[in-house]
């Protein structure tokens, strides 16, 4: 098999070939590194490539396999993680200048679990600075391009995590989702992305944006790949008190159970307003496919969804304003040179270190928490959150999953929305409620609109990732694997 054919495999297929002795981890890793070298100049998915470490890990995996001690489906599989995950000894920037040169002294839990499962870490992936953005254009280092159309964004904030998969640079990635940051890029890049239930995957060692909303999760080219990655990283962690004590489920065993009998809630609020007709058509077709597979559609209402964006931008910015206070130039990261006195050290380091979007959000959040505004803003937003969760609780008495679009449109052009933050914030209009309600949400490809991928969003009951994956798999099996993007090949 050629290197190009190798990188085009799903994680599942690569894993099967490893198990069968048809390929080595070193071969897979070398193929991926070659693909990164050949394509990433145009994609910009990687901020750091850890080639030597990856080859050493691949050789260790091959040695384990040779002695019969391979540890599972991820052993020897090249993966990469968003540069928001701390990696011991490997630069971790959060896409920000303020962390330039920061080398973490520890591995986050999810990364440690991937490595314990034998996965080979290829490097760190591009993102919006501190995960704040929907297009990856807020990366302080470089923009990331959508492999379907290099003039378009891959979505954000986990843009690199989706683009690397679409570009066939690795077999699985991790991202984080605070308001849609896994699902949106998965939708834009035509891959599968899962935001688990809040508390399903440990946040320890993931740089915090908005602590009550952030959730790490896997992206893959297929549902099986995502299920395998989730199995490796999910479960209780004593380092994260907000991580659930409930053990992880077996996400692979029920994957092929189909959609028969599944009750799918279709929220009427998600099909109005700015939803692009061609996107709506793909979503409706997917719903019709489910009906054909034996599922029933139930019209539901999530009346408080429309307050989602407002509540989100109060809560997320308030928490971010505190979470980003530690980047002060005192202990790590960027320290402005030549300053006099403490106030100047703080002001200059933060002025030089943070980009426009983090600054905007720190100011919004500081304002929302200020004396006199806290009650009216932050507390009220928390009340909205409760109402949104109740909407879903009520819906889940009548359905098993909620389905709708991930975003109003397919991938937009780079630069198209950077001048208008509010337009950019609307990219998350359908994904944000899921974070506010702490529920699991998934994006699975459901076709193309104008030659660009469209994702179907599925939202489930708390900790019912298994049902989401099973439902997504049913659609995936029906539609067949999405085509590989050709933009890179055309220009290569």
């Amino acid at each position, binding site marked *: 098999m050629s290197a190009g054919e190798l990188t085009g495999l799903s994680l599942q297929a690569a894993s099967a070939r490893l198990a069968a002795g048809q390929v080595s981890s070193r071969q897979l890793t070398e193929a991926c590194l070659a693909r990164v070298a050949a394509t990433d100049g145009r994609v910009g998915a990687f901020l750091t490539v850890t080639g030597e470490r990856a080859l050493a890990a691949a050789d260790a995996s091959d040695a384990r396999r040779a002695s019969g001690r391979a540890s599972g489906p991820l052993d020897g599989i090249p993966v990469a993680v968003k540069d928001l995950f701390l990696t011991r000894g490997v630069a971790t920037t959060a896409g920000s200048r303020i*962390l330039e040169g920061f080398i973490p002294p520890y591995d986050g839990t999810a990364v440690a679990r991937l490595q314990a499962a034998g996965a080979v870490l290829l490097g760190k992936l591009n993102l919006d600075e501190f995960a704040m953005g929907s297009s990856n254009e807020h990366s302080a280092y470089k923009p990331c391009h959508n492999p379907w159309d290099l003039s378009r964004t891959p979505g954000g904030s986990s843009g690199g995590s989706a683009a690397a998969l679409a570009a066939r640079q690795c077999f699985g990635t991790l991202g984080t989702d605070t308001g849609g940051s896994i699902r949106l890029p998965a939708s834009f890049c035509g891959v599968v992305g899962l935001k688990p239930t809040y508390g399903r995957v440990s946040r320890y*060692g993931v740089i915090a944006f908005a602590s009550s909303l952030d959730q790490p999760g896997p992206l893959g080219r297929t549902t099986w790949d995502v299920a395998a990655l989730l199995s490796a990283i999910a479960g209780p962690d004593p*380092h*994260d008190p907000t991580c659930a004590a409930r053990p992880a489920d077996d996400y692979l065993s029920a994957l092929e159970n189909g959609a028969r009998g599944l009750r799918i809630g279709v929220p009427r609020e998600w099909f109005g307003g700015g939803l692009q007709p061609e996107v709506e058509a793909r979503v409706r077709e997917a719903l019709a496919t489910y009906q054909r597979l034996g599922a029933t559609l139930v019209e539901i209402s999530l009346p408080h969804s429309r307050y989602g964006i407002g509540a989100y931008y109060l809560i997320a910015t308030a*928490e971010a304003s505190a979470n980003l206070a530690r980047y*002060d130039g005192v202990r790590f990261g960027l320290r402005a040179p030549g300053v006099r006195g403490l106030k100047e050290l703080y002001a200059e380091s933060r002025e030089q270190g943070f980009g426009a979007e983090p600054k905007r959000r720190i100011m919004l959040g500081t304002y929302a928490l200020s004396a006199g505004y*806290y009650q009216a803003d932050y507390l009220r937003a928390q009340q909205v959150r409760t109402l949104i969760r109740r909407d879903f609780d009520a819906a889940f008495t009548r359905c098993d999953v909620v389905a709708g679009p991930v975003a109003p449109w397919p991938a937009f052009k780079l630069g198209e929305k950077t001048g208008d933050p509010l337009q950019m914030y609307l990219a998350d209009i359908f994904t944000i409620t899921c974070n506010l309600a702490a529920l699991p949400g998934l994006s699975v490809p459901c076709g193309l609109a104008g030659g660009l991928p469209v994702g179907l969003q599925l939202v489930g009951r708390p900790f019912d990732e298994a049902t989401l994956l099973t439902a997504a798999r049913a659609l995936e099996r029906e539609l067949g694997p999405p085509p590989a993007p050709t933009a890179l090949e055309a220009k290569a």
Partner: protein
Amino acid sequence: MPVADFEVVLGLEVHAQLLTRTKIFCGCSTAFGAEPNSQVCPICLGMPGVLPALNAQVVEWAVKTGLALGCAVQPVSVFSRKNYFYPDLPKGYQISQFELPICLGGGLTITVDGQEKLIRLTRIHMEEDAGKNLHELAADGGSGVDLNRAGVPLLEIVSEPDLRSADEAVEYLKALRAILLALGVNDGNLEEGSFRCDANVSVMRRGATEYGTRAEIKNMNSFRFLKQAVDFEVRRQVALVEAGEPVVQETRLYDPVRGETRSMRSKEEAHDYRYFPEPDLPPVRVDEALLARVRASLPELPRARAARYQQVLGLPAQDAGVLVGDGALADFFDAALAARGGGAEAARKVANWTIGELSRLMNETGLPPPAWKLTPAGLAEVLALLDAGTVSGAGAKALVEELFRAGGDPGALVKSRGLAQVSDQGAIEAAVDAVLAASPADLERHRSGKKDLTGFFVGQVMKALKGQGNPGVVNALLKKKLGGLPPGEGR
């Protein structure tokens, strides 16, 4: 208008470091005095990506303190972030409790001038301590930050403004300290700052119904400084009111060298801490099982103990007060008395030795109780040797000191150190004879009645016996040898 025409209104905020082995949100040691930044990890350094994991012992001890102080322990309490920038605060916020603290209400009784008074508490909450800034470390005058203390657990205990004088404030602080020591949750060290207080002080004209504007006083690291600071502040505020000038709401720093308070920051400069619930920590739940377990573990509290010492053991109030002021002393006393046995007489003796010798040695050496080599049983044995006449009072003191510093077996030490008291008639008689023979002139002066030199001869004999003569025997023999004549009556 003199100070006496004003009423002082005072409340204290006490910060007590909990004696847990590890910090409140990570596994780092809390030991004092280590090399700067040697007891730190990514969590207490506030590295990117870290999360706090609450130390269960902190909750348990907060509950224990709350129960001991009669507070309403809250079934659900919430940590909050208190936001401000300072180099000793690694995350840029302190994890504290704000709207929903773990304990509400409660109070403690103090005695001032023989009068009992209940001082009510507002609340008790849990929080993390900050690190320490160290200035002028480098040759260029640069500053450093030591984060060993960052994340050490604190209880903040806030009183209502029920105190009416500096003396009441001192009594309150002493009573609170004694309770925390008895509970074993705090070491009560004001100097090192593991037990520290801020005072909210205001004055109002006697009979007034509205409190005056208050100032918050910081940096009082002894009982004496607390009294001085409050007294100074009261005089300052009274002078302002008398002069018709307003008292400004502000934070003031006590300067122990000049004995005065100085403005640190005004209300306008006060931080807006932008508190909000800490999203990284779930609400703290205290269930019935924990309450019951902690309640069962509560020791006898100082006031109850002092009452028992007075009523059951017949100790003077003063002695009872000293013993319960430091739980370690009282524990030692109880154990030594149990070992010694006996009633009020024995209790008084054990108390005298505990208060006199043990607390003297404790203060001189500064050694904490675990470092004392003297055991309660050891003291009981020394007192038995004293009562049996085996050692003299001086010998017993020497024994206690040696045992305190080096330990050992009292009986064996008496032999090896030659501390046994000489009660043997023959030996003492020989010494008496030798002393009298060596001082014929003094003997004559005594016998002539010119001067009573009994005390002088006792001293000489004791000296000859190296201080180990049994005083009773020495006195009796001298009396006989000196002729039994009442001195001064002549012949």
